[in-house]
Protein backbone atom coordinates (compact mmCIF):
# COMPACT_ATOMS: atom_id res chain seq x y z
CA UNK A 1 0.00 0.00 0.00
CA UNK A 2 2.74 2.38 1.02
CA UNK A 3 4.53 1.38 -2.14
CA UNK A 4 1.54 2.21 -4.35
CA UNK A 5 1.22 5.61 -2.68
CA UNK A 6 4.89 6.35 -3.23
CA UNK A 7 4.60 5.19 -6.79
CA UNK A 8 1.58 7.39 -7.45
CA UNK A 9 3.29 10.40 -5.91
CA UNK A 10 6.36 9.92 -8.03
CA UNK A 11 4.19 9.40 -11.09
CA UNK A 12 2.50 12.72 -10.36
CA UNK A 13 5.92 14.34 -10.00
CA UNK A 14 7.06 12.95 -13.33
CA UNK A 15 3.92 13.97 -15.12
CA UNK A 16 3.79 17.45 -13.61
CA UNK A 17 7.43 18.14 -14.32
CA UNK A 18 7.00 16.85 -17.87
CA UNK A 19 4.01 19.14 -18.37
CA UNK A 20 5.98 22.13 -17.13
CA UNK A 21 8.90 21.14 -19.36
CA UNK A 22 6.82 21.34 -22.50
CA UNK A 23 4.69 24.34 -21.46
CA UNK A 24 7.17 26.69 -19.79
CA UNK A 25 7.93 29.90 -21.63
CA UNK A 26 11.49 30.05 -20.39
CA UNK A 27 13.91 27.64 -21.99
CA UNK A 28 16.13 27.35 -18.93
CA UNK A 29 13.15 26.57 -16.72
CA UNK A 30 12.03 24.08 -19.29
CA UNK A 31 15.39 22.28 -19.23
CA UNK A 32 15.41 22.25 -15.44
CA UNK A 33 11.86 20.88 -15.33
CA UNK A 34 13.05 18.13 -17.65
CA UNK A 35 15.82 17.45 -15.15
CA UNK A 36 13.20 17.13 -12.42
CA UNK A 37 11.18 14.73 -14.58
CA UNK A 38 14.23 12.60 -15.29
CA UNK A 39 15.32 12.58 -11.66
CA UNK A 40 11.81 11.54 -10.61
CA UNK A 41 11.97 8.76 -13.17
CA UNK A 42 15.16 7.67 -11.50
CA UNK A 43 13.28 7.56 -8.21
CA UNK A 44 10.61 5.49 -9.96
CA UNK A 45 13.26 3.00 -11.07
CA UNK A 46 14.39 2.80 -7.46
CA UNK A 47 10.84 2.06 -6.34
CA UNK A 48 10.30 -0.73 -8.86
CA UNK A 49 13.67 -2.23 -7.98
CA UNK A 50 15.98 -1.25 -10.84
CA UNK A 51 18.65 0.25 -8.59
CA UNK A 52 21.54 0.24 -11.00
CA UNK A 53 19.46 1.86 -13.72
CA UNK A 54 18.36 4.47 -11.26
CA UNK A 55 21.97 5.51 -10.68
CA UNK A 56 22.76 5.35 -14.37
CA UNK A 57 19.72 7.47 -15.10
CA UNK A 58 21.03 10.17 -12.78
CA UNK A 59 24.65 10.03 -13.90
CA UNK A 60 24.05 9.80 -17.63
CA UNK A 61 20.70 11.42 -18.21
CA UNK A 62 20.33 14.00 -15.53
CA UNK A 63 24.05 14.60 -15.16
CA UNK A 64 25.06 14.25 -18.79
CA UNK A 65 22.18 15.14 -21.04
CA UNK A 66 20.95 18.07 -19.02
CA UNK A 67 24.43 19.47 -18.58
CA UNK A 68 24.86 19.26 -22.33
CA UNK A 69 21.58 21.06 -22.85
CA UNK A 70 22.50 23.79 -20.44
CA UNK A 71 25.75 24.16 -22.30
CA UNK A 72 23.80 24.44 -25.52
CA UNK A 73 21.59 27.08 -23.93
CA UNK A 74 24.63 29.04 -22.82
CA UNK A 75 26.16 29.05 -26.28
CA UNK A 76 23.07 30.68 -27.75
CA UNK A 77 21.42 34.03 -27.07
CA UNK A 78 20.07 34.82 -23.63
CA UNK A 79 17.24 36.99 -24.94
CA UNK A 80 16.08 34.37 -27.30
CA UNK A 81 16.20 31.51 -24.82
CA UNK A 82 14.27 33.20 -22.04
CA UNK A 83 11.24 33.70 -24.28
CA UNK A 84 10.18 30.57 -26.10
CA UNK A 85 6.74 29.16 -25.55
CA UNK A 86 4.33 27.36 -27.78
CA UNK A 87 2.96 29.52 -30.61
CA UNK A 88 -0.82 29.58 -30.41
CA UNK A 89 -1.18 28.49 -34.04
CA UNK A 90 0.36 25.13 -33.24
CA UNK A 91 -1.13 24.48 -29.85
CA UNK A 92 -4.55 23.13 -30.75
CA UNK A 93 -3.48 20.65 -33.40
CA UNK A 94 -0.54 19.51 -31.29
CA UNK A 95 -2.75 18.90 -28.27
CA UNK A 96 -5.30 16.96 -30.32
CA UNK A 97 -2.62 14.76 -31.85
CA UNK A 98 -0.95 14.10 -28.52
CA UNK A 99 -4.28 13.30 -26.86
CA UNK A 100 -5.19 10.94 -29.71
CA UNK A 101 -1.90 9.12 -29.23
CA UNK A 102 -2.43 8.95 -25.49
CA UNK A 103 -5.98 7.68 -25.87
CA UNK A 104 -4.93 5.00 -28.30
CA UNK A 105 -2.16 3.72 -26.05
CA UNK A 106 -4.41 3.71 -23.02
CA UNK A 107 -7.02 1.81 -25.05
CA UNK A 108 -4.39 -0.72 -26.04
CA UNK A 109 -3.22 -1.10 -22.45
CA UNK A 110 -6.73 -1.53 -21.10
CA UNK A 111 -7.57 -4.12 -23.76
CA UNK A 112 -4.74 -6.35 -22.63
CA UNK A 113 -4.98 -8.68 -19.65
CA UNK A 114 -1.86 -8.55 -17.55
CA UNK A 115 -1.84 -11.63 -15.39
CA UNK A 116 0.64 -12.74 -12.79
CA UNK A 117 3.89 -10.86 -13.07
CA UNK A 118 6.14 -9.69 -10.29
CA UNK A 119 9.31 -11.14 -11.77
CA UNK A 120 12.36 -11.60 -9.59
CA UNK A 121 14.75 -8.78 -8.78
CA UNK A 122 17.84 -8.44 -10.94
CA UNK A 123 21.06 -7.51 -9.21
CA UNK A 124 23.81 -5.47 -10.77
CA UNK A 125 26.11 -8.45 -11.29
CA UNK A 126 23.52 -10.32 -13.31
CA UNK A 127 22.94 -7.19 -15.35
CA UNK A 128 26.64 -6.83 -16.07
CA UNK A 129 26.91 -10.48 -16.98
CA UNK A 130 23.97 -10.27 -19.39
CA UNK A 131 25.45 -7.16 -20.94
CA UNK A 132 28.78 -8.81 -21.68
CA UNK A 133 27.53 -12.23 -22.79
CA UNK A 134 24.09 -12.34 -24.39
CA UNK A 135 24.13 -8.76 -25.60
CA UNK A 136 27.81 -8.45 -26.36
CA UNK A 137 27.39 -7.65 -30.03
CA UNK A 138 24.90 -4.88 -29.31
CA UNK A 139 27.24 -3.59 -26.62
CA UNK A 140 30.15 -3.40 -29.05
CA UNK A 141 27.99 -1.82 -31.73
CA UNK A 142 26.86 0.75 -29.18
CA UNK A 143 30.44 1.65 -28.35
CA UNK A 144 31.07 2.26 -32.03
CA UNK A 145 27.95 4.39 -32.19
CA UNK A 146 29.05 6.49 -29.24
CA UNK A 147 32.44 7.01 -30.82
CA UNK A 148 30.80 8.03 -34.07
CA UNK A 149 28.46 10.41 -32.24
CA UNK A 150 31.38 11.96 -30.38
CA UNK A 151 33.34 12.53 -33.58
CA UNK A 152 30.24 13.82 -35.34
CA UNK A 153 29.52 16.30 -32.57
CA UNK A 154 33.08 17.59 -32.69
CA UNK A 155 33.16 17.85 -36.47
CA UNK A 156 29.75 19.51 -36.73
CA UNK A 157 30.22 22.05 -33.96
CA UNK A 158 33.85 22.92 -34.65
CA UNK A 159 34.48 26.47 -35.76
CA UNK A 160 36.13 26.28 -39.13
CA UNK A 161 38.90 28.68 -39.95
CA UNK A 162 37.73 31.05 -42.67
Amino acid sequence: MLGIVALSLIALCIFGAGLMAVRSGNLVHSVLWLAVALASTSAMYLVVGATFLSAVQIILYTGGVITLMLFGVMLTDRNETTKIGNPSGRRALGAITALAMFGLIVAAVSQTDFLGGGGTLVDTQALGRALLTDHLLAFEALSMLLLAAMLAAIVVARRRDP
Partner: protein
Amino acid sequence: MTVASNASNSFIMSLPSPVPEILTHPVGHGLVMGTIILTFFMLISAWSIWFERRFAGRMQSRVGPNVVGPAGLLQPIADAIKLLRKENLVPSGADKVLFWLSPPMTLFFTLATLAVIPLSEDLLVAELDIGLLWVLAFSGLLLFPTWIAGWASNNKYTLFASMRAVAQGISYEIPLLFSAIVPVVVVGSLSISDIVRYQGEHGWLLFWPLGPGALGFLIFFVASLAEANRIPFDVPEAESELVAGVTVEYSGMMYGLFPMTEYVHTLITSALASALFLGGWYGPFGWAPGVHWMVGKTLFLFFVIFWARWSLVRFRSDQLMRLCWVWLVPLSLLCVCGAALWVVYVGGVA
Protein backbone atom coordinates in the same frame (compact mmCIF):
# COMPACT_ATOMS: atom_id res chain seq x y z
CA MET B 1 18.84 -1.92 -1.95
CA THR B 2 19.68 -3.42 1.38
CA VAL B 3 19.57 -1.24 4.43
CA ALA B 4 21.88 -2.36 7.19
CA SER B 5 20.05 -2.82 10.42
CA ASN B 6 22.68 -4.94 12.10
CA ALA B 7 23.75 -2.34 14.61
CA SER B 8 25.51 -5.12 16.33
CA ASN B 9 28.23 -4.99 18.84
CA SER B 10 29.95 -1.69 19.33
CA PHE B 11 29.49 1.42 21.38
CA ILE B 12 26.05 2.19 20.01
CA MET B 13 24.64 -0.93 21.64
CA SER B 14 26.13 0.19 24.93
CA LEU B 15 24.02 3.37 24.90
CA PRO B 16 20.89 3.61 27.13
CA SER B 17 18.00 1.42 26.07
CA PRO B 18 15.57 3.41 23.81
CA VAL B 19 18.23 4.20 21.26
CA PRO B 20 19.08 0.67 20.06
CA GLU B 21 15.39 -0.10 19.55
CA ILE B 22 15.06 2.83 17.18
CA LEU B 23 18.15 1.59 15.45
CA THR B 24 16.59 -1.70 14.47
CA HIS B 25 14.25 0.06 12.04
CA PRO B 26 15.92 1.29 8.85
CA VAL B 27 14.28 4.72 9.00
CA GLY B 28 15.11 5.24 12.66
CA HIS B 29 18.62 4.01 12.06
CA GLY B 30 19.01 6.44 9.20
CA LEU B 31 17.70 9.35 11.23
CA VAL B 32 19.96 8.76 14.19
CA MET B 33 23.05 8.02 12.19
CA GLY B 34 22.31 10.86 9.81
CA THR B 35 22.16 13.28 12.71
CA ILE B 36 25.43 12.04 14.16
CA ILE B 37 27.33 12.05 10.88
CA LEU B 38 25.87 15.35 9.70
CA THR B 39 26.77 17.09 12.94
CA PHE B 40 30.24 15.65 12.80
CA PHE B 41 30.86 16.80 9.26
CA MET B 42 29.36 20.26 9.75
CA LEU B 43 31.40 20.87 12.90
CA ILE B 44 34.62 19.77 11.30
CA SER B 45 34.07 21.90 8.24
CA ALA B 46 33.14 24.96 10.32
CA TRP B 47 36.31 24.80 12.34
CA SER B 48 38.39 23.76 9.39
CA ILE B 49 37.85 27.28 8.10
CA TRP B 50 39.48 28.58 11.24
CA PHE B 51 42.23 26.01 10.95
CA GLU B 52 42.86 26.84 7.34
CA ARG B 53 43.17 30.52 8.00
CA ARG B 54 45.58 29.93 10.86
CA PHE B 55 47.56 27.46 8.78
CA ALA B 56 47.68 29.83 5.81
CA GLY B 57 48.86 32.53 8.18
CA ARG B 58 51.74 30.35 9.33
CA MET B 59 52.72 29.49 5.78
CA GLN B 60 52.74 33.14 4.85
CA SER B 61 54.58 34.26 7.99
CA ARG B 62 51.65 36.06 9.55
CA VAL B 63 49.35 35.27 12.43
CA GLY B 64 45.85 34.67 11.08
CA PRO B 65 42.62 35.17 13.07
CA ASN B 66 43.46 35.29 16.77
CA VAL B 67 41.15 37.88 18.31
CA VAL B 68 37.74 36.25 18.77
CA GLY B 69 37.99 33.74 21.56
CA PRO B 70 41.12 31.85 22.67
CA ALA B 71 43.49 31.66 19.69
CA GLY B 72 40.62 32.91 17.52
CA LEU B 73 38.66 29.69 18.01
CA LEU B 74 35.30 31.46 17.97
CA GLN B 75 35.99 33.06 14.61
CA PRO B 76 33.64 30.72 12.62
CA ILE B 77 30.77 31.59 14.94
CA ALA B 78 31.47 35.28 14.54
CA ASP B 79 31.55 34.86 10.76
CA ALA B 80 28.26 33.01 10.78
CA ILE B 81 26.58 35.69 12.86
CA LYS B 82 27.92 38.37 10.56
CA LEU B 83 26.57 36.61 7.49
CA LEU B 84 23.19 35.95 9.06
CA ARG B 85 22.72 39.61 9.92
CA LYS B 86 23.32 40.80 6.37
CA GLU B 87 20.59 41.47 3.81
CA ASN B 88 20.03 38.98 1.03
CA LEU B 89 20.11 40.98 -2.19
CA VAL B 90 18.72 39.85 -5.54
CA PRO B 91 20.13 41.68 -8.55
CA SER B 92 17.70 43.26 -11.00
CA GLY B 93 17.23 41.21 -14.14
CA ALA B 94 18.01 38.01 -12.27
CA ASP B 95 15.84 34.94 -12.49
CA LYS B 96 14.51 35.21 -8.93
CA VAL B 97 13.25 31.67 -8.36
CA LEU B 98 16.37 30.02 -9.65
CA PHE B 99 18.56 32.54 -7.86
CA TRP B 100 16.99 31.59 -4.53
CA LEU B 101 16.96 27.89 -5.35
CA SER B 102 20.64 27.46 -6.04
CA PRO B 103 22.22 27.65 -2.53
CA PRO B 104 19.80 25.20 -0.89
CA MET B 105 20.21 22.82 -3.84
CA THR B 106 23.98 22.94 -3.37
CA LEU B 107 23.57 22.07 0.28
CA PHE B 108 21.06 19.32 -0.42
CA PHE B 109 23.08 17.51 -3.07
CA THR B 110 26.22 17.73 -0.98
CA LEU B 111 24.57 16.35 2.11
CA ALA B 112 22.81 13.63 0.11
CA THR B 113 26.17 12.08 -0.69
CA LEU B 114 26.80 11.75 3.02
CA ALA B 115 24.14 9.07 3.27
CA VAL B 116 26.35 6.24 2.05
CA ILE B 117 29.75 7.22 3.48
CA PRO B 118 30.57 4.72 6.22
CA LEU B 119 32.57 6.06 9.13
CA SER B 120 32.86 2.60 10.62
CA GLU B 121 31.22 -0.82 10.40
CA ASP B 122 27.98 0.45 11.94
CA LEU B 123 28.34 4.22 11.81
CA LEU B 124 26.61 4.92 8.52
CA VAL B 125 23.20 6.12 7.41
CA ALA B 126 22.31 3.45 4.89
CA GLU B 127 24.25 0.68 3.23
CA LEU B 128 23.22 0.83 -0.44
CA ASP B 129 24.46 -1.90 -2.74
CA ILE B 130 25.11 0.84 -5.30
CA GLY B 131 26.59 3.24 -2.77
CA LEU B 132 29.51 4.34 -4.92
CA LEU B 133 27.24 5.17 -7.84
CA TRP B 134 25.03 7.12 -5.47
CA VAL B 135 27.92 9.32 -4.38
CA LEU B 136 29.12 9.87 -7.92
CA ALA B 137 25.60 10.62 -9.13
CA PHE B 138 24.99 13.28 -6.53
CA SER B 139 28.38 14.88 -6.85
CA GLY B 140 27.68 15.02 -10.59
CA LEU B 141 24.38 16.75 -9.86
CA LEU B 142 26.29 19.43 -7.97
CA LEU B 143 27.06 21.06 -11.30
CA PHE B 144 23.42 22.14 -11.55
CA PRO B 145 23.22 24.61 -8.69
CA THR B 146 26.57 26.02 -9.75
CA TRP B 147 25.32 26.52 -13.25
CA ILE B 148 22.01 27.90 -12.06
CA ALA B 149 23.71 30.37 -9.75
CA GLY B 150 25.88 31.61 -12.59
CA TRP B 151 23.09 31.87 -15.11
CA ALA B 152 20.41 33.27 -12.83
CA SER B 153 22.61 36.12 -11.57
CA ASN B 154 22.47 37.81 -14.98
CA ASN B 155 26.11 38.85 -14.75
CA LYS B 156 28.80 38.13 -17.30
CA TYR B 157 31.40 37.15 -14.71
CA THR B 158 29.14 34.58 -13.14
CA LEU B 159 28.16 33.25 -16.56
CA PHE B 160 31.80 32.76 -17.50
CA ALA B 161 32.45 31.17 -14.15
CA SER B 162 29.58 28.75 -14.55
CA MET B 163 30.68 27.86 -18.06
CA ARG B 164 34.15 27.10 -16.78
CA ALA B 165 32.76 25.14 -13.88
CA VAL B 166 30.55 22.99 -16.09
CA ALA B 167 33.30 22.37 -18.63
CA GLN B 168 35.73 21.41 -15.90
CA GLY B 169 33.12 19.35 -14.08
CA ILE B 170 32.06 17.19 -17.02
CA SER B 171 35.67 16.72 -18.13
CA TYR B 172 37.01 15.62 -14.78
CA GLU B 173 34.02 13.41 -14.10
CA ILE B 174 35.42 10.96 -16.66
CA PRO B 175 38.75 10.19 -14.93
CA LEU B 176 36.94 10.34 -11.61
CA LEU B 177 34.49 7.64 -12.68
CA PHE B 178 37.17 5.49 -14.26
CA SER B 179 39.47 5.64 -11.25
CA ALA B 180 36.54 4.86 -8.96
CA ILE B 181 35.92 1.78 -11.11
CA VAL B 182 39.26 0.34 -9.98
CA PRO B 183 38.05 -0.65 -6.47
CA VAL B 184 34.77 -1.83 -7.99
CA VAL B 185 36.58 -4.13 -10.39
CA VAL B 186 38.91 -5.47 -7.75
CA VAL B 187 36.27 -6.02 -5.08
CA GLY B 188 33.38 -6.87 -7.35
CA SER B 189 30.88 -4.74 -5.51
CA LEU B 190 29.53 -1.21 -5.75
CA SER B 191 28.91 -0.97 -2.02
CA ILE B 192 31.42 1.23 -0.25
CA SER B 193 31.22 -0.84 2.91
CA ASP B 194 32.01 -3.99 0.92
CA ILE B 195 35.00 -2.26 -0.57
CA VAL B 196 36.27 -1.30 2.87
CA ARG B 197 35.69 -4.80 4.23
CA TYR B 198 37.64 -6.28 1.35
CA GLN B 199 40.52 -4.01 2.26
CA GLY B 200 40.33 -5.22 5.83
CA GLU B 201 40.99 -8.74 4.58
CA HIS B 202 43.36 -8.15 1.69
CA GLY B 203 45.14 -4.90 2.51
CA TRP B 204 44.59 -1.39 1.28
CA LEU B 205 43.68 -0.96 -2.36
CA LEU B 206 46.30 1.79 -2.52
CA PHE B 207 48.94 -0.91 -2.30
CA TRP B 208 47.44 -4.17 -3.24
CA PRO B 209 46.44 -4.18 -6.89
CA LEU B 210 50.05 -3.25 -7.61
CA GLY B 211 50.12 -0.24 -9.92
CA PRO B 212 46.45 0.35 -10.69
CA GLY B 213 45.72 0.88 -7.02
CA ALA B 214 48.24 3.65 -6.42
CA LEU B 215 47.69 5.26 -9.80
CA GLY B 216 43.93 5.03 -9.38
CA PHE B 217 44.14 6.70 -5.99
CA LEU B 218 46.26 9.49 -7.41
CA ILE B 219 43.88 10.10 -10.31
CA PHE B 220 40.86 9.88 -8.04
CA PHE B 221 42.33 12.39 -5.64
CA VAL B 222 43.37 14.85 -8.35
CA ALA B 223 40.06 14.54 -10.20
CA SER B 224 38.02 14.99 -7.05
CA LEU B 225 40.04 18.09 -6.21
CA ALA B 226 39.01 19.38 -9.61
CA GLU B 227 35.39 18.38 -9.02
CA ALA B 228 35.41 20.31 -5.74
CA ASN B 229 37.02 23.32 -7.47
CA ARG B 230 39.92 23.40 -5.03
CA ILE B 231 43.25 25.03 -5.83
CA PRO B 232 45.08 24.33 -8.10
CA PHE B 233 41.87 23.69 -10.01
CA ASP B 234 39.83 26.70 -8.90
CA VAL B 235 39.67 28.24 -12.36
CA PRO B 236 35.87 28.78 -12.06
CA GLU B 237 36.36 31.22 -9.22
CA ALA B 238 39.69 32.72 -10.20
CA GLU B 239 39.60 35.91 -8.12
CA SER B 240 41.93 37.84 -10.36
CA GLU B 241 39.79 37.27 -13.45
CA LEU B 242 36.22 36.59 -12.40
CA VAL B 243 35.89 38.56 -9.15
CA ALA B 244 34.64 35.56 -7.17
CA GLY B 245 33.13 33.07 -9.55
CA VAL B 246 29.45 32.25 -9.54
CA THR B 247 28.90 33.77 -6.09
CA VAL B 248 29.56 37.36 -7.13
CA GLU B 249 25.94 38.50 -6.79
CA TYR B 250 25.14 36.59 -3.59
CA SER B 251 25.22 38.16 -0.16
CA GLY B 252 24.45 37.25 3.44
CA MET B 253 23.82 33.64 4.38
CA MET B 254 22.84 32.88 0.76
CA TYR B 255 26.49 33.49 0.00
CA GLY B 256 27.61 31.72 3.15
CA LEU B 257 26.10 28.44 2.03
CA PHE B 258 28.47 28.24 -0.94
CA PRO B 259 31.84 28.22 0.85
CA MET B 260 30.34 26.07 3.58
CA THR B 261 29.17 23.38 1.19
CA GLU B 262 32.47 23.61 -0.59
CA TYR B 263 34.24 22.68 2.61
CA VAL B 264 31.77 19.90 3.34
CA HIS B 265 32.16 18.59 -0.20
CA THR B 266 35.93 18.58 0.12
CA LEU B 267 35.64 16.74 3.40
CA ILE B 268 33.31 14.16 1.86
CA THR B 269 35.71 13.73 -1.01
CA SER B 270 38.52 13.04 1.44
CA ALA B 271 36.32 10.56 3.29
CA LEU B 272 35.43 8.80 0.04
CA ALA B 273 39.06 8.56 -1.03
CA SER B 274 39.96 7.12 2.38
CA ALA B 275 37.17 4.56 2.17
CA LEU B 276 37.89 3.52 -1.41
CA PHE B 277 41.66 3.34 -1.38
CA LEU B 278 43.00 3.76 2.13
CA GLY B 279 41.16 0.99 3.92
CA GLY B 280 38.41 3.06 5.54
CA TRP B 281 38.01 2.17 9.18
CA TYR B 282 40.77 -0.46 9.13
CA GLY B 283 44.28 0.34 10.22
CA PRO B 284 47.32 -0.77 8.24
CA PHE B 285 47.41 -4.59 7.96
CA GLY B 286 43.88 -4.68 9.34
CA TRP B 287 44.93 -3.46 12.80
CA ALA B 288 42.33 -2.41 15.32
CA PRO B 289 39.39 -1.37 13.15
CA GLY B 290 37.44 1.59 14.36
CA VAL B 291 36.04 4.96 13.58
CA HIS B 292 39.26 6.69 14.65
CA TRP B 293 41.14 5.37 11.61
CA MET B 294 38.52 6.66 9.20
CA VAL B 295 38.41 10.08 10.84
CA GLY B 296 42.19 10.25 10.98
CA LYS B 297 42.65 9.39 7.32
CA THR B 298 39.91 11.76 6.24
CA LEU B 299 41.42 14.62 8.18
CA PHE B 300 44.85 13.84 6.86
CA LEU B 301 43.67 14.02 3.23
CA PHE B 302 41.71 17.15 4.10
CA PHE B 303 44.90 18.64 5.46
CA VAL B 304 46.80 17.68 2.30
CA ILE B 305 44.24 19.61 0.30
CA PHE B 306 44.81 22.74 2.40
CA TRP B 307 48.48 22.23 2.08
CA ALA B 308 48.19 22.08 -1.70
CA ARG B 309 45.99 25.15 -1.69
CA TRP B 310 48.59 27.32 -0.05
CA SER B 311 51.54 25.83 -1.88
CA LEU B 312 50.48 25.64 -5.51
CA VAL B 313 49.44 28.17 -8.12
CA ARG B 314 46.32 28.02 -10.24
CA PHE B 315 46.25 26.26 -13.61
CA ARG B 316 45.28 28.09 -16.75
CA SER B 317 42.01 26.90 -18.31
CA ASP B 318 43.67 25.20 -21.25
CA GLN B 319 46.30 23.55 -19.05
CA LEU B 320 43.48 22.20 -16.95
CA MET B 321 41.80 20.60 -19.96
CA ARG B 322 45.10 19.29 -21.26
CA LEU B 323 45.88 17.64 -17.93
CA CYS B 324 42.49 15.98 -17.97
CA TRP B 325 42.22 14.75 -21.56
CA VAL B 326 45.87 14.08 -22.35
CA TRP B 327 47.00 12.57 -19.06
CA LEU B 328 44.25 11.62 -16.67
CA VAL B 329 41.76 10.05 -19.08
CA PRO B 330 44.24 7.69 -20.81
CA LEU B 331 45.95 6.87 -17.52
CA SER B 332 42.65 6.11 -15.82
CA LEU B 333 41.70 3.83 -18.73
CA LEU B 334 45.01 2.03 -18.29
CA CYS B 335 44.19 1.76 -14.59
CA VAL B 336 40.90 0.04 -15.29
CA CYS B 337 42.57 -2.37 -17.74
CA GLY B 338 45.32 -3.01 -15.21
CA ALA B 339 42.80 -3.71 -12.46
CA ALA B 340 40.89 -6.10 -14.72
CA LEU B 341 44.06 -7.95 -15.65
CA TRP B 342 45.05 -8.05 -11.99
CA VAL B 343 41.72 -9.58 -11.05
CA VAL B 344 41.93 -12.23 -13.77
CA TYR B 345 45.56 -13.22 -13.27
CA VAL B 346 46.43 -12.41 -9.67
CA GLY B 347 43.48 -11.75 -7.44
CA GLY B 348 40.09 -12.99 -8.39
CA VAL B 349 36.68 -11.71 -7.42
CA ALA B 350 35.47 -13.20 -4.16
